[in-house]
């Protein structure tokens, strides 16, 4: 039942990180078989079942990408990545490139704000500000 309802949504979510459909399918199998026994946690969580599934899936996807040494190589996927459907990045299409970069590094590659601040030679407050603006745009564009 959970798969029938959320399978397509999660597959589309996985494709944001892993554009290859075969690899995304294999990841989806991993995600559902690992999360199915923990579903009670989803019902006990403060998050909705779908958001809980997303959050937990993201952890597994990032773990998978890191194990493959793809922490930063998943591609410059922005907007519509190759083989992917509309991703959350489509909600940031109008954002300046720096904003998109911050969101991509944090969301797709699981980097910390501290890492990003070091990487771009700015302070943490600056990165936090960009992320805050990105999240505001996402909220606004969602509805």
């Amino acid at each position: 039942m959970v798969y029938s309802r959320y399978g397509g949504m999660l597959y589309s979510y996985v494709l944001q990180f892993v554009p290859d459909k075969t690899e995304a399918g294999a990841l989806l199998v991993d995600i559902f078989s690992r999360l199915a026994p923990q579903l009670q946690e989803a019902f006990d969580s403060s998050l909705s079942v779908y958001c809980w599934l997303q959050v937990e899936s993201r952890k597994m996807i990032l773990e998978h990408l890191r194990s493959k040494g793809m922490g930063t190589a998943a591609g410059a996927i922005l907007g519509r990545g190759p083989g992917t459907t509309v991703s959350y990045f489509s909600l940031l299409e109008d954002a300046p490139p720096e904003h998109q970069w911050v969101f991509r590094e944090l969301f797709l590659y699981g980097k910390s704000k501290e890492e990003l601040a070091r990487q771009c030679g700015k302070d943490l407050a600056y990165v936090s500000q960009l992320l805050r603006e990105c999240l505001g745009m996402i909220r606004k564009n969602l509805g």
Partner: protein
Amino acid sequence: MNIELYLQSGIVESYALGLATQREVEEFEQLLPHYPELKEALRDFEYHLELFSIDNEVPPPAEVRKRIEDRLRELPAISDPRQGGTRGGRTEFVAATETSHHIRVHKIWRTLFIAVFVLAKIFLILAIYYFIQYRHAEKALRQSPPSPAASQK
């Protein structure tokens, strides 16, 4: 705490997207039960995120469902020791201490209780009615003069 400012920090979106740090998550979960505004903002964001995801969902390859089912079948059946269970054909019991003063019964008992209660009331009313009737009859008998046939004997 200025909850408006806190909401504007993007914490709700960070939390729902899994971008919040462990410290932020703990703080948010502590505040959540105390601020309905947070709960509302979270529900609203989740709702729109889910709608967006429904609009953009991609059907997974057909074999994925089968592979998940196969994988789940391979998982060992884990029974919660608190629930008791059988292991090696032997039934295991877990000692339980009852602390509640309440009992839970089947719903049919509610109907039965109401029926018994109503019947009891009906019988009580009938009993009172017949008792009064009996008293009236007894009184009437005592007051009525003896019949001539009875007096001749």
